[in-house]
């Protein structure tokens, strides 16, 4: 059963990664990268890294890819497209059905063989939030604090890089006034 899950998730990750690399449109590439990240989260669950799987979905598929999509839509480098055509809508419908089927089969798989994923308990705390957190706040406390400083620097840097310069906007306002 684990081998089956590994094959499905591994092939899904590789296929969507290949689709991303060979794609010209940034939006499609971002979507297939999200699929890759979900497959990787499933592999983390197979490897008993439950906290990392949750963080993979929340941080990568949630935060970073949403940032990518915002930037893609902000830059608007794609060609303008009109209303979606008939076959596009059909394709979307088929895709929705496929995603639903995948979720149903996943739920059934877990129901059939619930022992496939060990959720971790006091006897076997490998990869649980408690165990990783304890490690993070005792042995790796200094790297943890440095990471928070790094994030602060990244926030300040991103704001400084992405904002319009004050003198630029002031001069353009002056131009428009004159």
């Amino acid at each position, binding site marked *: 059963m684990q081998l089956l899950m590994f094959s499905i998730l591994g092939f899904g990750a590789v296929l969507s990664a290949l689709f*991303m690399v060979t794609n010209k449109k940034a939006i499609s590439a971002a979507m297939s*990268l999200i699929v890759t990240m979900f497959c990787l989260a499933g592999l983390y669950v197979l490897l008993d890294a439950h906290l990392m799987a949750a963080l993979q979905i929340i941080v*990568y598929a949630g935060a970073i890819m949403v940032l*990518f999509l915002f930037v893609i839509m902000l830059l608007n480098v794609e060609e303008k497209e009109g209303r979606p055509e008939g076959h596009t809508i059909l394709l979307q419908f088929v895709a929705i059905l496929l995603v639903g089927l995948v979720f149903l089969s996943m739920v059934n798989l877990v129901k059939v063989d619930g022992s496939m994923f060990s959720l971790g308990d006091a006897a076997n705390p*490998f990869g649980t939030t408690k165990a990783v957190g304890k490690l993070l706040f005792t042995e790796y406390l200094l790297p943890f604090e440095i990471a928070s400083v790094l994030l602060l620097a990244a926030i300040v840097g*991103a*704001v400084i890089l*992405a904002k319009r310069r004050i003198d630029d906007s002031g001069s353009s306002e002056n131009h428009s006034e004159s």
Partner: protein
Amino acid sequence: MVSLNAYLMLGAVLFSIGAVGVFTQRNALIIYMCIELMLNAVNLTIIAFSRFLNNMDGHVFVFMIMTVAAAEAAVGLAIIISLFRNKATVNVDDINLSKG
């Protein structure tokens, strides 16, 4: 139980796909996504080793890599935005400012 070699092979394949993407794609945004893919492949390798060595230090490393990846994505996308503001393109062939 899936063997360690299978996970390592999968991580290597994903990393190679990401590296090929960095060299073949000309869109700066997709190049960034390929870099994220390479970071993810490394994360998979670390977690696989962590499981098979039964040592949870790898999870902390993956946590740190995720932090750095988030910071890198924020700063990198800000750089792309300011580049786009100056040159009105995200094609890396058109952005050769340091070439002289």
